[in-house]
């Protein structure tokens, strides 16, 4: 003992760190990564690697040469952005476009706000939406999933997503029932990932496994996912019950497109979501309603990314408006 350390209480701390939280999220995404590689093969490997490395490199360059701050590319947050960006693009996206996505995600979406903890919007979604608007063709040309070691079912290399089939079909005046035969079996295939789409969003099951891990390790809480899920089910359920020929059932909405990825991995991003449990519930509910509005009435077949980004913008307001219940606020006797 040289000299006594004197500091204010508390003198013990939970065994937690920013790094542990961030890498916990990375580990939770491993099942979905494996499924994406299974269905989209080398294309998925390439997309994942390019995206993660590009995100880390962009952050490194900005921190080292532009703002000359401490380099923190191994804190896990850039990796998460990289994986999420990869999850949100098709497996055949050209490398250059992907790099542009990474520059926008990290450069504009994260570092321009001041880096980790200060970004208003989910960086991966900023990158994704930028690409979707700038490169609409490349971003919506989906490779047909082909399981490893299996013969291709069709000769087609690319095909539409279930949501795309539905949107175009309904726009052409067909009913949901007429379109159903064209859609994959959505309790079986859509759960396990045998559908066209972005590489990380295809398997609801793999995403749920990762989400369960995050919930058990308390990296995320139930508030955002449950309220998001319920608002999707309730809102799409009302539409479905009002006219089953025009509107598809809630389960379809849940297992298709980026819904599971959005609910569990992007809406729950702690930096860009509200901090109090009450605020998180409002946030999740808003995401759900906007997602369905866009999917059903909007121009895009998919609405998760836009919905979360729109709600991200409301977070400062939600944080101000929905305070936790203060102890002793109301006199109860």
């Amino acid at each position, binding site marked *: 003992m040289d000299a006594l350390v004197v500091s204010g*209480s508390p003198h013990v701390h939970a065994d*937690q760190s920013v790094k542990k939280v961030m890498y916990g999220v990375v580990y939770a995404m491993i099942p979905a990564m494996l499924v994406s590689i299974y269905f989209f093969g080398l294309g998925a490997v390439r997309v994942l690697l390019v995206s993660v490395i590009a995100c880390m490199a962009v952050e490194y360059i900005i921190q080292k040469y532009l703002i000359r701050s401490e380099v923190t590319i191994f804190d896990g947050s850039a990796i998460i952005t990289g994986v999420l960006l990869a999850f949100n693009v098709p497996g055949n996206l050209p490398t250059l476009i992907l790099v542009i996505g990474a520059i926008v995600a990290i450069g504009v979406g994260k570092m321009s706000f001041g880096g980790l903890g200060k970004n208003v919007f989910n960086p991966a979604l900023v990158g994704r939406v930028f690409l979707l608007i700038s490169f609409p063709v490349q971003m919506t040309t989906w490779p047909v999933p082909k399981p490893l070691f299996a013969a291709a079912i069709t000769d087609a290399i690319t095909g539409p997503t279930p949501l795309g089939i539905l949107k175009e079909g309904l726009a052409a005046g067909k009913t949901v029932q007429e379109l159903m035969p064209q859609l994959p079996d959505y309790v079986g295939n859509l759960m396990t990932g045998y559908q066209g789409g972005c590489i990380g969003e295809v398997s609801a099951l793999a995403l749920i496994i990762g989400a369960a891990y995050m919930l058990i390790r308390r990296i995320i809480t139930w508030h955002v996912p449950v309220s998001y899920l319920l608002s999707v089910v309730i809102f799409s359920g009302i539409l479905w019950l009002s006219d089953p020929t025009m509107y598809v059932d809630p389960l379809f909405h849940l297992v298709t497109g980026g819904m599971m990825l959005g609910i569990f991995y992007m809406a729950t991003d702690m930096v860009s979501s509200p901090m109090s449990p009450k605020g998180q519930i409002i946030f999740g509910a808003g995401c759900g309603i906007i997602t369905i509005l866009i999917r059903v009435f909007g121009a895009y077949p998919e609405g998760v990314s836009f919905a979360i980004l729109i709600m991200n913008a409301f977070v400062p307001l939600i944080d101000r408006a929905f305070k*936790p219940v*203060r102890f002793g606020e109301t006199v109860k006797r």
Partner: protein
Amino acid sequence: MLKTFKTGGVHPEEYKLSGSSPISVLPLPEKVFIPVSQHLGAPAKVLVKKGDPVKAGQMIARGEAFISAHIHSSVSGKVSRIDEVTDPSGYRRMAVIIDVEGDEWEEHIDRSQEIVREITLDQKGIIQKINEMGIVGMGGATFPSHVKLMVPEGKKAEILIINGVECEPYLTSDHRLMLERGEEIMVGIRILMKGLGVTRAIIGIENNKPDAVNYMKSLAAGEDGIDVVPLKVKYPQGAEKQLIKALINREVPSGRLPIEVGAIVHNVGTAFAVYEAVQKNKPLFERVVTVTGKTVKNPSNFMVRIGTPVSHLISSAGGVLEETGKIIAGGPMMGKALTSLDVPVIKGTSGILLIRSDESRRVEQNTCIRCGRCISACPMGLEPWLLGKLISHQEYERAEKERIMDCMECGSCHFICPAGIPLLDWIRVGKSRVGQIIRSRGK
């Protein structure tokens, strides 16, 4: 389902290393250092001077203000000098320093082990006796106990709550006291009930002490109006407002005292001290102190005379100072880091905790990732991250509106923060500034 409080709370690792060590009497030190301000409120006025002979139990400083407490000598011997010493809070305070000679007690103190059950004093007499014997809250807050028994005009005490929670990790002094002096505590509770004029008392004990729960239950079975309630383990359950919420589901309004909801809370240690004071005529000059930590060979519970230097306790328990980086008076969540080994044990010292060198320094501070865990952890329903930010921007008015003064400094926010942000440090700074602003407004 075990009862607990609803809002917030955390689960630090318990490390009750000394839970099975019976209370042993610590040999007398050569010198004791007795500060004249060991309680909340005004310091007591010194009655002795250098060279005076004193006996154990003799009043050496008188608490003259309404909120103050008398101080008694804990040993017999000669007053060596009256000087400033550093106390556990790190401040220099006036103290009576006594050279120990023998162990002679005041004659009026009943030193027998026999338990005196019959309470002869009336309500007024009880309060007076507790005042005379210098009893203060033994849980750590050290609020003079007789003041707590004087219910303000217009308020009515309905229920006495006895705090046997001991929610701080490591500490076991209350646990051992309940196991070994449970019968005395029961009499002490009866005295407190009579002093308050209530007919009901509840003893709250966290369920990580099943032996204490069962023993106190068996004792309470023979008593009218006293119940023992086991509580789910959760920090900070021993906080007054949280304990009241857990036990009787009443919420003390912001900025008010428990009496607002008809409750008065006393610690089990205080109940024991009250027993000794009223039934045995014994002033508060010794207490149970847990000496523990990962660098202590024999984690112990000692009966210690007030004023004993901490170094004496540490060497008696086999503390390895070479591997120790920090020494804490109290528990790891709310205790104070000591500035030296010469600091004396005072009435509110429930434990001495040695922290290993590698765990002594704070974790590296990172940026806030807005995870919201501080909000979920805060037992007062505050937003620690926001308070921290407001104070760092010197926005005191806004911090006041966000109820910064409700913070009781339990430390759950800093404990849970994955970014290691010293939220409580900011809040402490803010509370002192906002407190100044509120006081200046009153003038």
